[in-house]
C-alpha cells in the first residue's frame, strides 16, 4: 500500500488557501504597522503630550471644560483610583489598553490586548474579538478556551441557555453564529455594523440589516421570526424576560413587545441597558434617563458627554463614563461616586461591556 502517495492525493481547496491568506496577510500587515508605530512613538509621544497638556491648560475653552468638570462631579470629589465597586459582581471593560475584568474589591485582571468583549449569559466566560480572532476566555485565570480566525471580527455577543450557548458576531459584513464551544461556525446573513442581541434563554438573535431593518431569527430552525423597520439602528437590546426588543436609532427609540410597537421620541440616544428587573437606562448626551416600573426620567446630568452604561447585577447602581474628565461615575439612586484616572488604570479609555454577578 502506498500510503504516502494516497495521502498526497488529498485535494487542497484553492479557495481555502486564498481565504487563509487574506486573514494572515492582513494580520501581518497590522503587525508591521504596529512595529513602525512603536519605532516612531518614543520621538512623537513627548512632543504630543507636552502640546496636549499646554493646549488644555492655556486655552480658555479647555480650561473652562476642565473647571466645569471639577466643579460638578469633579476631580476633587472622585476617588483617585478604583478601590472597589459599589455593588457585588464583576465589571467587564475593554479598550486600547486591553480587556479587563474588575472584581468587586477593585482588583483587575487583564484578559489580553485591545478588543471588544462580552460576558457569557451567566458570567462564566468572556468572548473577546481582536481583529481577526474570536476567543473564549475563562475570566478568573485568563485561560483561552478556544479561538476562531475570521476576518475583521466585531461585536461578539454571547447568548443562549446555560447548557447550550451561542455566540453571534460580525465578520466581513455578515452576521455569524458559533456554538459556545467554538464549533459549528456559520454565516447567517448580511448585517449592518451593529452589535447583535440575543433574546435571553433562547437561541434567537436580533440583528440590524444593511437595509435599515431589524430582523429576529431563530438560529436553530433558521426561521425569521420578525422583521422591523428601524432605519439607522445603532444599538439593540432585549429585556431580561425577552419580551421587549429595543432598537436605538438617531431620532427615536423603538420598543417592540408582543406585537405592539412603541416609539420613544428622543433623538440622540447613544446607549441603552436593561436592569435585571426590566428598567431601561438610556444614555443621552450628558444625561442618564431611567424608564420602567412606574418611574421615568433623568437620574443624572454630567458636565460633559457620557459614554457607555451598565447596571450592577443587583440593579441598584448604574455605571457610566465621563471621558472628558477621565472618570467613571456610579449612580445609585441619590448616591453618586466617581473614580478618576481611568485611562491610567486601564491603559487608555475603555468601554463598559457588562457587570455580572459572581466573584
Amino acid at each position, binding site marked *: 500500500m502506498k500510503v504516502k*502517495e*494516497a495521502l498526497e492525493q488529498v485535494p*487542497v481547496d484553492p479557495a481555502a488557501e486564498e481565504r487563509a491568506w487574506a486573514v494572515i496577510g492582513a494580520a501581518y500587515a497590522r503587525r508591521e504597522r504596529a512595529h513602525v508605530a512603536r519605532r516612531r512613538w518614543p520621538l512623537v509621544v513627548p512632543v504630543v503630550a507636552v502640546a496636549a497638556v499646554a493646549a488644555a491648560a492655556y486655552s480658555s475653552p479647555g480650561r473652562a471644560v476642565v473647571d466645569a468638570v471639577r466643579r460638578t462631579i469633579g476631580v476633587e470629589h472622585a476617588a483617585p483610583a478604583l478601590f472597589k465597586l459599589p455593588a457585588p459582581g464583576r465589571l467587564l471593560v475593554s479598550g486600547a489598553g486591553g480587556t479587563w475584568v474588575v472584581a468587586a474589591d477593585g482588583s483587575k485582571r487583564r484578559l489580553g490586548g485591545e478588543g471588544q468583549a462580552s460576558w457569557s449569559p451567566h458570567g462564566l466566560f468572556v468572548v473577546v474579538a481582536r481583529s*481577526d480572532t474570536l476567543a473564549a476566555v475563562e475570566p478568573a485565570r485568563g485561560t483561552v478556551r478556544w479561538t476562531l480566525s475570521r476576518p475583521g471580527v466585531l461585536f461578539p455577543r454571547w447568548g443562549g441557555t446555560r447548557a447550550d450557548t451561542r455566540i453571534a458576531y460580525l465578520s466581513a459584513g455578515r452576521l455569524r453564529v458559533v456554538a459556545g464551544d467554538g*464549533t459549528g461556525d456559520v454565516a447567517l446573513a448580511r448585517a449592518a455594523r451593529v452589535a447583535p442581541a440575543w433574546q435571553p434563554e433562547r437561541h434567537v438573535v436580533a440583528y440590524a440589516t444593511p437595509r435599515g431593518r431589524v430582523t429576529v431569527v431563530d438560529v436553530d430552525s433558521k426561521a425569521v421570526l420578525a422583521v422591523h423597520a428601524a432605519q439607522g439602528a445603532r444599538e439593540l437590546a432585549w429585556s431580561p424576560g425577552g419580551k421587549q426588543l429595543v432598537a436605538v436609532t438617531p431620532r427615536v427609540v423603538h420598543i417592540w413587545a408582543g406585537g405592539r410597537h412603541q416609539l420613544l421620541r428622543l433623538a440622540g440616544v447613544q446607549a441603552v441597558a436593561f436592569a435585571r428587573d426590566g428598567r431601561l437606562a438610556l444614555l443621552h448626551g450628558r444625561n442618564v434617563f431611567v424608564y420602567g416600573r412606574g418611574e421615568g426620567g433623568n437620574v443624572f446630568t454630567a458636565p460633559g458627554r457620557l459614554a457607555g452604561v451598565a447596571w450592577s447585577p443587583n440593579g441598584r447602581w448604574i455605571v457610566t463614563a465621563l471621558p472628558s474628565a477621565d472618570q467613571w461615575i456610579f449612580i445609585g439612586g441619590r448616591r453618586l461616586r466617581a473614580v478618576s484616572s481611568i485611562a491610567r488604570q486601564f491603559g487608555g479609555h475603555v468601554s463598559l461591556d457588562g457587570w455580572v454577578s459572581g466573584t
Partner: protein
Amino acid sequence: MREAQRGSAAALEELFRAHWARAYRAALLVVGDAAAAEDIAQESFLAAVRALDRFDRRRPFGPWLHKIVVNRAIDWGRARALRRELDLEDVAEPAAVEPAVAGERSEELAGALALLGPEQRAVIVLRYLLEYTPGEIAELLDLPRGTVNSRLRRGLDRLEEELR
C-alpha cells in the same frame, strides 16, 4: 524567513504558499473535517505570524509549523466528542470546499484513517505525509520514541485491515 521577519509581505506570502498545502492536508487527515482543517491551518499560521520575532532562524520553519498544526488537530479531535454541533449548514455561506478527499484511493484511506484515534492519525500523517522520522515525531509530539513506533505499527495494521 529573514525577510518576513524584516517586514516583507512578499516573503511572508512566499512562506505561506510554500507551506499551506501540507499544513492543511495534515490537519484535514487528522480531523477529517474540511472546515475545521481550514481553521486549524489558518490559526497555526496566525500563531506563527504572531511569534515571528521570536523565531530562531537557524531552525527550519516547517517542523515548527507542523508541530502547531498537528497538536491543534489532535486537540480538536479529542474535544470533538464532547462538543455540541450546531446544525445550521443549510444557511451557511457556500464554503466552496471540495469533498474532504477526492480520488478513490485517498478516499478509502481517509475513511480508514477516520477509524483511528486522533493521536494515531497524527503519527501516520507526520510519518507518511510530512515524512518525519519516528525520532523527529517523538520530539514534535513530545512523546517517547517507543510510543511513536507502537502507534505507527498499530495504525498501519489497522489501515491494512480496513483496506484489505
